[in-house]
């Protein structure tokens, strides 16, 4: 999927390049002009990070996006835009070749020398706030919207997500005892790599009203078969869209996982990777869909 997005792109049309001096004139305006006034003029945006691309599409400014990165997999039509590569291995000239006037990045985009070159060439480069909590998502959405001159739309989007998540939380309070969830990031050769604390998956489990059974560990770690049995999850969550074989791997074919309550009940949830862990405008829906699978009957899925 990512490979197709990396296909060869044609150089920029000369007519578009004619806009460049104008863009630079605007970008070079003194710092006295407020950031939002400058950003309103941003006509050629490079979006680095899946959540940022999703947010820009949700704000309806997709025709102002000139390029995306390999983590931008939603909406699928974003793949029609030129792709500047993986967000942590950007090429300064590659980004510059799209003649952007604004580069919006998720935290962690790099490498630093490339970012430095982009900044020194007079392009507005903005790093969006990071994080997985309800507030952090709202802040991220509002920051992206403000950067492209749509603060009101951003506020509405953020309030929508916050409201949805709050409603979900109050419904979850009545949904009965919390389910114990094991999130398997990948299952290669029978060795499950599982989400611990401080991961996007951990945050999503919390939003959906579950308990991460592996929260004692930090980050994604491979667990031994015995340890997996010991964790005794009620539900196993896996991702689709994370490699060709992933969707067909049956975790309960592994005896250690078959022995857990989840294995006995056949409780397996598969959800799209970008949807579940993107932490963008669709996160409230993703949390609700996951919750609906964890507590069938008590929670209705998003429409």
């Amino acid at each position, binding site marked *: 999927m990512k490979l197709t997005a990396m296909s060869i792109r044609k150089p920029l049309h000369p007519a578009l390049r004619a806009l460049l001096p104008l863009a*630079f004139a605007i970008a070079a305006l003194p710092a006295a002009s407020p950031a939002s006034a400058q950003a309103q003029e941003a006509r050629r945006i490079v979006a680095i990070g899946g959540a940022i691309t999703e947010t820009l599409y949700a704000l309806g400014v997709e025709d102002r996006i000139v390029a995306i990165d390999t983590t931008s997999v939603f909406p699928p039509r974003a793949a029609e835009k030129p792709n500047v590569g993986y967000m942590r*291995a950007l090429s300064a000239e*590659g980004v510059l070749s799209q003649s952007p006037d604004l580069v919006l990045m998720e935290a962690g985009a790099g490498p630093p020398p490339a970012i430095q070159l982009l900044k020194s060439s007079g392009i507005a480069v903005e790093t969006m706030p990071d994080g997985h909590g309800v507030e952090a998502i709202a802040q991220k959405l509002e920051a992206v919207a403000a950067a492209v001159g749509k603060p009101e739309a951003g506020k509405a989007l953020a309030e929508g997500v916050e409201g949805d998540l709050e409603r979900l939380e109050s419904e979850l309070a009545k949904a009965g005892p919390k389910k114990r969830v094991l999130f398997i990031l990948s299952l290669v050769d029978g060795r499950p790599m599982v989400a611990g604390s401080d991961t996007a998956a951990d945050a999503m489990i919390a939003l959906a009203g579950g308990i991460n059974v592996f929260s004692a560990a930090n980050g994604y770690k491979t667990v031994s078969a015995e340890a997996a049995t010991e964790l005794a999850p009620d539900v196993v969550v896996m991702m689709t869209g994370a490699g060709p074989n992933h969707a067909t791997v049956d975790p309960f074919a592994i005896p250690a996982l078959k022995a857990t309550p989840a294995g006995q009940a056949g409780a397996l949830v598969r959800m799209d990777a970008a949807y579940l862990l993107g932490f963008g405008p669709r996160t409230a829906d993703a949390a609700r869909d996951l919750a609906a699978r964890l507590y069938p009957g008590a929670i209705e899925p998003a429409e």
Partner: protein
Amino acid sequence: MSALTGSSPLARAPGERSLVQAVALALLAFGVLATAVLAIGIGPAAISPSRVIQILAAGPKTTAFPLGDVIIVWQIRLPRAIMAALIGAMLALGGTVMQGLFRNPLADPAILGVSNGAALGAVSMIVLGGGALAPVSAILGGYALPLAAFAGALTATLILYAIATREGLTSVATMLLSGIALAAFAAALMGYLAFLSDDTQLRDITFWNLGGLGGVTWEKVAISGPIMLLVLAAAPMLARGLDALVLGEAEAFHMGLRVERLKRLAILLVAAATGVAVAVSGTIGFVGIVVPHLLRLAVGADHRFLLPASCLGGALLLLVADIGARLLVAPAELPIGIITAAIGAPFFLWLLMRRRDFEGF
């Protein structure tokens, strides 16, 4: 040393051979220059060649052209082309010297554990830079990673040298074997660090291991350039010694060659060349093997010719590979190590099938 002249096993038919060598060197030098010009002239950003020349002529501070174009030519393409040429020269030189020193066509800085030492330094910084090594990365900033790689290469070399040297004599065989062990040990430590690392760190490690010149800046050229030029200047001092070593260490010694001094100088140069190259561009495979072999098969194993020719050949290969890295998936960028191996390996195999004799070995 003058007694060695003419005693090189490869000095047959001197007139004919030296003409071929002179032509080959001239062709290589021309190739490097032409490719460097090409590398500065083309890229994912569509700037016409005439405009590139105008921008170059106008100087880095010109305001007559859009700032983006000036940055691309002066701050991105120019330092990158210089660095590609220098790193290519370092990698090929390292391979040539190792193969001469060990009298083994497979020798390469990677086998000695020098590359792995550098890689271990870099991976430590990637994984621990935010944790245990945070004070170091706070002081050194963006230079923490390259400096850690260089320190790793030097440490590996020093350990090797200490192990292989007894009573002032350095055993080449011991060094080769302990190098393999050291490389395995460094790989084990890297594996452990990979186990500790999170998702993004893992991807950083993978990308770094495939090499790339995307992060080259004038500051990096200014820091690493002098070391590389020093290595280039010192390399010719090895040529006659390496030629004599082809006969064997004892024979070279009896011919009046100061074998221990030669070995020490050779190892120091390889460590410096590899350390700097890996520090700046990550591990770029295959250049150190393929370039010396190509040239040896084509024009012979006389090190007075082979050393400069390898430097030029390495520079040429890496310049071409970097143009590919920048253009093939533009506006994204391919890791350059993929390209050097993808160009180098099939070409090398084709050459081996055509000529089965390893001249010089």
